[in-house]
C-alpha cells in the first residue's frame, strides 16, 4: 500500500518485503541498517521515526497450543471445514528483531516498518544521526532487551535502576513479583 513507484529494490541491504494487515515490512541486514535508514529518510521521504520496538523470539512457536482457528476466507459456525487446521508459526531467523516504524508526513501519508534481525551478542548500529529521536528508544531497547547499540553516544539504562542486573523484557527473565498472601490463611 505504500510501495513507491520503483518498488523497494533501491533500499540497501534489503532481504525481504512483507505485506500484511495493510502494512509493509522491509527486512534488512543489520550491517547495512544505517544505509537503509538514510535511503528511506532522504530518497523515500520517511523523515519521522515513530517508534523502535525490540522483540525477543526465544521460544516462539513453542508456547501456544495451536494456531488460530479459521481460514483466510473466514469462519462460519455452520460450515465445518472453514475452521481451519492447526498451524504452528514459522520460525524466525534470529533471536531478536529490531523494528523501526517510519512515517512520511505527506499527502497521502505513508508508513513502513524497517526490520532487522540480530542474535544475542550481536549489536545493531545506531540510527541516532539519521533520526535524533532514536536516542531514548535505543536506550530503552538496550535497557529492557539487552540489544547492544553501536555508536550511541549515551548508552546507559533509562527505565531501570542504573545498577540493575539483567534485561527484564527478555523471555528468559522471570516476571517477578511475589506470591499473593491471603488474610485468612495461617
Amino acid at each position, binding site marked *: 500500500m505504500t510501495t513507491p513507484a520503483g518498488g523497494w529494490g533501491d533500499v540497501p541491504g534489503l532481504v525481504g518485503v512483507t505485506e500484511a494487515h495493510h502494512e509493509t515490512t522491509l527486512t534488512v541486514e543489520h550491517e547495512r541498517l544505517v544505509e537503509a535508514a538514510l535511503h528511506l529518510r532522504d530518497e523515500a521521504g520517511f523523515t519521522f521515526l*515513530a517508534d523502535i520496538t525490540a*522483540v525477543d523470539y526465544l521460544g516462539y512457536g513453542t*508456547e501456544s497450543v495451536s494456531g488460530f482457528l479459521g481460514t483466510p476466507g473466514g469462519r462460519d459456525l455452520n460450515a465445518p471445514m472453514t475452521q481451519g487446521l492447526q498451524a504452528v508459526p514459522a520460525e524466525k531467523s534470529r533471536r531478536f528483531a529490531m523494528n523501526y516504524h517510519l512515517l512520511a508526513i505527506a499527502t*497521502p501519508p505513508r508508513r513502513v516498518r524497517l526490520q532487522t534481525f540480530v542474535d544475542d551478542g550481536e549489536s545493531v548500529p545506531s540510527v541516532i544521526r539519521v533520526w535524533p529521536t532514536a536516542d*531514548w528508544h535505543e536506550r530503552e531497547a538496550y535497557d529492557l532487551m539487552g540489544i547492544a547499540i553501536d555508536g550511541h553516544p549515551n548508552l546507559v539504562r533509562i527505565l531501570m535502576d542504573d545498577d540493575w542486573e539483567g534485561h527484564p523484557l527478555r523471555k528468559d527473565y522471570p516476571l517477578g513479583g511475589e506470591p499473593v498472601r491471603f488474610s485468612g490463611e495461617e
Partner: protein
Amino acid sequence: MTATAKRPAGRAIYEGTRIPYPIPTVLQTSQALWDTGDVMTVNFGPNHPSTHGVLRLVVDLYGEDVTGLAAVVGYLHTGFEKNMEHKTWWKCITYPERIDYVSYQNNEYVFVAAVEKLLDLEIPPKATWMRTLLCELNRIHSHLVWLGTSALELGAISMFWYAFREREQILDLFELVAGYRMHTRYFQVGGLAEDIPRGFYPEARKFCDWMPRAIDDYETLLTRNKIWLERTEGVGLLSAEDAIALGQSGPVLRASGVDWDIRRDEGYLAYHQVDFRVPVFAEGDVYARYRVHIEEMRQSVRIAEQCLDRLERMEGEPWIADDRKVVLPPRHELHTSMESLIHHFKIVTEGFRVPEGEVYTAIESPRGELGCYVCSEGGPKPWRVKFRAPSFVALQATATCMSDALIADMIAIVGSLDTVMGEVDR
C-alpha cells in the same frame, strides 16, 4: 512537504538545527562556563510539585540561566509490557488504560484497535461512533487536566479550579456510561462492553452546550493576560524541522507549524465522517502550544456534538461485533444454544486466539501519536506488546527547547510538552 536536499548523517542533520550534539537529549554546559566556577548543578528531583509527576531533571545553572539539562526517567516503570505478555487478550485491556492515566480511553482504544486489526474484525457503526465520542470527551478531559496543572505551575492558580470543574462533568458522563470515573475499561475487542444506557444522550448534550462557554472563560483568564503572555510567548522555541527530527507529534508538532493530525490525515474510528478543524500555529513557543490545546478543545466539542447527532438515531443497534469466536454471546442465548455455551466457556477460560502476525496501530491521543505494536504468536496471550508513548518522545525535546532559558522558563516548557510520566516509563 518540500523536497529535502541530501543531508549528511554527520554532525548536524541540517543547518540551523538547535538539537544538541553529541547527545540530542542532553544540553551540556560549555567548558568556558564550567571554568568560571559559577555553575551549580541542581536536582529537580522525582518528587517535585512542578514536574508533572515523577520526572527528575538534573540541571546546571549559571545564575538563573539553564546551561545544562538532562532528564532522568524510569521512576514509574511498571513493567506493563511484560505483565501483558502473561495475560489473555481480554485481561490485557485493563493494562493500557493505566499507562497514560489521563487519556485512558484513547489508550484502551489503541490496544483494542491493534487486536481488531490482527483479527480482521468488523465493528458495528454504533460502537465506532460511541468510541469516537468517548475518545473526544477524553481529549477534552486530558486538555483540561493539562491546562489546570500547567497554569497552576506558572502561578495562575484559579485556572486549576475552573478546569477541574468541567473535568468533574466529563467524569460524571463517563460514570454514567461505563460505571466508573477513570479507567473505565468500556472498550471491548469487537465494540463496546455494554450497551449505552438511557439518559446518557441528554446529559452529554447538556455538557456540549455548556463547554464552549467554559472555554471562553478559560480564554478570558489567560489568552490576553499580560503575565501569561510574558511567561509563555517566545519561550521554548522548537522549529518544525527540529520537531520532526525529534519525533514530536500532536499539539507540540502543530504548534511548530507542521499540519499533521492522524485523525484527519490517516483516519480511524469515525473521524473521516465528522467535520472539524485542526489548529496549527507557526510560532513554536509555549503560547502556541497553549493556543493549540484551547482550540482543540473547541473542536472536540464540535466532534462530540456530531457524534451525538448520529448516536441518537442508533437506538437498538448492536454495540459489539457478532463474531462468536471472539465476542461473548448474549446472555439469554446461553439458556438455549449449546454452541453459545461452549463459546462462552472457551472465551472466558482460555481466551480467544488471535492470528499470528504483527501490527502497529497509531492514533492521535491528546499528547500526540500513540502507537501500539502487537506481535501475536497465534495463541491466547500476546507475544509482545509495545506502546509508543508520545510523552516519552516529547521529553526528548526538552533539551532543544531549553536553549537560552531561565529556570522559570524551564517549568513552562516542561509543562507545555504535556507529559504524563506513566506513559514515559510504562
